[in-house]
């Protein structure tokens, strides 16, 4: 067990180091962007005195290293700073937006992950026969169509023609839980279609790979049914690659849904980030960048940990 603990500790430490490096990258990236933050806040009408005042107020005259550690120190204490454009506390504004994004990502994952794995298993069970081909064709088609187009198509047929679900997925605090679910039905469908193929194909490939092994043949020879062989012998040994691709897609559901948020007018992180990038609101961009990086690194870390734990050679060292 000691070896596993060491491996896990290493993995977590590596992730933290990575996050730290990313924070440097984000900070340097936003510093070397052309244009001065004070200048972009004040605009064309800036007088030299006003510029100097604002630069002092924002601490822009300090050396970059001091500013970086001040920023990092703030973040470690949960203080993301204030937005330049609105003067509001970033942590508060991001809190709601991040909550919305996670709400959407969670329900998309709840639908997409089990469905993808089930379809993957089904495709293996009937491989090279019509269910396998049908599943592959449909999921590959849905991943190949740009997601905004899927959005428009669902919007037109399900919302405008059939009137089943609203085309605008705007949620707010006064809505009840079921109202919210109803509102996000269409974006959940689109996101499911977008991430389904990747996870399904990976599940299918990983299990097929395992199916070549001698112990699968043994299982078949001792008379287990097709699905039982997959469930009891193939799937547990294919977990590592499947979890990897699932985590990758979960990360996409959190950080990559800007287009879907715009199409369905969903008040999540993506729209918030884009609005602030176009106004050069650097503190918000830095905060969003760091949160996205943390989500990505965190989910990949979970994937690594799961594959370590699911590896029997690591769990039962000689």
């Amino acid at each position: 067990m000691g070896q596993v603990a060491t491996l896990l500790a290493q993995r977590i430490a590596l992730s933290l180091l990575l996050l730290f490096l990313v924070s440097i990258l984000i900070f340097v990236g936003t510093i070397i962007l052309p244009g001065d933050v004070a200048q972009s806040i004040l605009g064309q009408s800036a007088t030299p005195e006003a510029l100097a005042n604002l630069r002092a107020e924002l601490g822009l005259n300090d050396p970059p290293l001091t500013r970086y550690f001040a920023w990092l120190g703030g973040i470690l204490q949960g203080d993301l700073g204030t937005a330049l454009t609105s003067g509001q506390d970033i942590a508060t504004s991001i809190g709601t937006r991040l909550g919305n994004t996670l709400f959407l990502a969670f329900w998309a994952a709840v639908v997409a992950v089990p469905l993808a794995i089930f379809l993957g298993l089904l495709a293996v069970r009937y491989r090279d026969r019509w269910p396998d081909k049908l599943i592959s064709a449909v999921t590959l088609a849905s991943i190949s169509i740009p997601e905004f187009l899927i959005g428009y198509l669902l919007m037109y047929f399900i919302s405008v023609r059939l009137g089943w679900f609203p085309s605008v997925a705007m949620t707010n605090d006064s809505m009840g839980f079921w109202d919210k679910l109803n509102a996000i039905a269409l974006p959940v469908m689109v996101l499911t279609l977008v991430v389904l193929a990747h996870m399904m194909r990976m599940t299918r490939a990983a299990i097929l790979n395992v199916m070549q092994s001698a112990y699968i043949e043994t299982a078949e020879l001792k008379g287990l049914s097709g699905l039982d062989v997959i469930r009891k012998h193939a799937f547990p040994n294919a977990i590592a690659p499947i979890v990897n691709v699932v985590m990758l897609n979960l990360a996409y559901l959190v950080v990559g849904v800007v287009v879907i948020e715009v199409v369905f007018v969903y008040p999540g992180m993506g729209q918030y980030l884009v609005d602030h990038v176009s106004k050069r609101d650097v503190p918000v961009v830095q905060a969003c960048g760091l949160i996205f990086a943390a989500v990505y690194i965190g989910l990949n870390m979970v994937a690594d940990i799961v594959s370590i734990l699911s590896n029997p050679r690591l769990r039962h060292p000689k």
Partner: protein
Amino acid sequence: MTNPLDFMAGRVSAGKMSRREFIGRASALGIGAAMANTMFAQAARAATPVKGGTIKMAFQGGSTTDSLDPALATNTVALMVIRFWGEPLVELDKSGGLVGKVAESFEGSADASTWRFRIRDGITFSNGQAVTPEDVVATMQRHSDDESKSGALGLMRDIKDIRVDGRDVVFELTSPNADLPYLMSDYHLMIQPNGGRDAPDAAIGTGPYILKEVDMGVRFVAEKNPNYWGDLGHADTMELLVINDNTARVAALQSGQVDLIDRVPPRTAKLVARAPNIDVHQTSGPGHYVFIMHCDTAPFDNKDLRLALKYAMNRQELVDKVLFGYGSVGNDTPINAAYPLFTELEQRSYDPEKAAFHFKKSGHDGSVLLRTSDNSFPGAPDAAALYQQSAAAAGIDIEIKREPNDGYWSEVWNAQPFCTSYWGGRPTQDQMYSTAYLSTADWNDTRFKNEQFDQLLFAARAETDQAKRKQMYADMGQIVHDEGGLICPMFNDFVEATSTRVSGFVEGIPGQVLMNGYAPHQMWVNA
């Protein structure tokens, strides 16, 4: 509709069919004029506004980074939100004149250099505070002092002094301006308690609604102000959603989630209008799409080359193919019938022979470089390609350079000698010309410097005899038309749409988009 008469009655109730048209069509169905007249009256009575209910609307243009401070308002969403809670001193009326809001009346001195506004008695802000002339003065000062970042700053430059005199607010101008009251209708100049100095973004004003929920760039909810002094506003609740994506906005209307949207894409407007539960409205406005040449930069410093390029423009083709008919042809001046004191000039039309003649006379050799981008106006690259074709027929070779959207307004517009752009228009001719055609204007994007024009502009500003003013503006229009660097192929209409759940939208209201921003107030939910 099963019965054509029912359908016509519906059109009358919706304010879309006149008495003359109704009687004409009714007689085509074999109904006598007297009978038809009675029926028209009945149908029109059905158009009486209904109080109460919620109107939901979706507009383009809002962003998470917006502020509620009216001084910083730049987009349609900000305009519409301001219209809920705030009011200016005066406002445009249906015929392009002015009507008092926070000011109940106004008058100017004989030479138009002093203006006096009488502040309406007994009206209160939504926080219960009474409106005083001091609040008005503070508001005007906030928009015009040195630290001001107000979008109305440019309008306030000629104001020398603002002071309180009893119930009046008096404006002293550095130079006479007969249009000063029009400037006061600007949507940035909302009267706020203490001018909004304490809390510029508190959204407290004298408007017919009070903001209840604010989620910047996402959603706004406003409820009727029970203490509003006037009779504006029928619905109890307004819900405004920000939907920037064109397709999503149209879908929200089609699926019945909202009752009113702006900017229906001209390309699909006719398709949208085919739905039985949707009405598409078009209103001509002062907004126009332009091809602008710098009059002081070679080769465009040659008047003959400018004329050649003007004659090479097929204006009607652009209206048909770029605006899909939702607009009207321009005449190489920034002014159209949407402006007061407008005089129609002789229409310049596509004439390859004249274009070839002037092009030859200019002595220019080789191609002309035109820069364009997607965001300079909707369909600009298409318009540039059509222009290239019509110019080629006159032997003029136009080279098109497609510029990126990002940075177009800082790197290309007002910087490069020939490019595509747009103007939203201004309430008066004086403002439009002062903003972009005066020699010293910051936004003189055609580098048009004409002494005679400048003199006329100042003279017209001070002239209080409307007939003389009208003549001066006609002369100025002629100068820009002949000498200027502006090729104005088209004025774009505002294309907006409502669901049949609501009534009261009227086409042709002068001013800004959406019935000058008052569409939600004038509309009601059908009983």
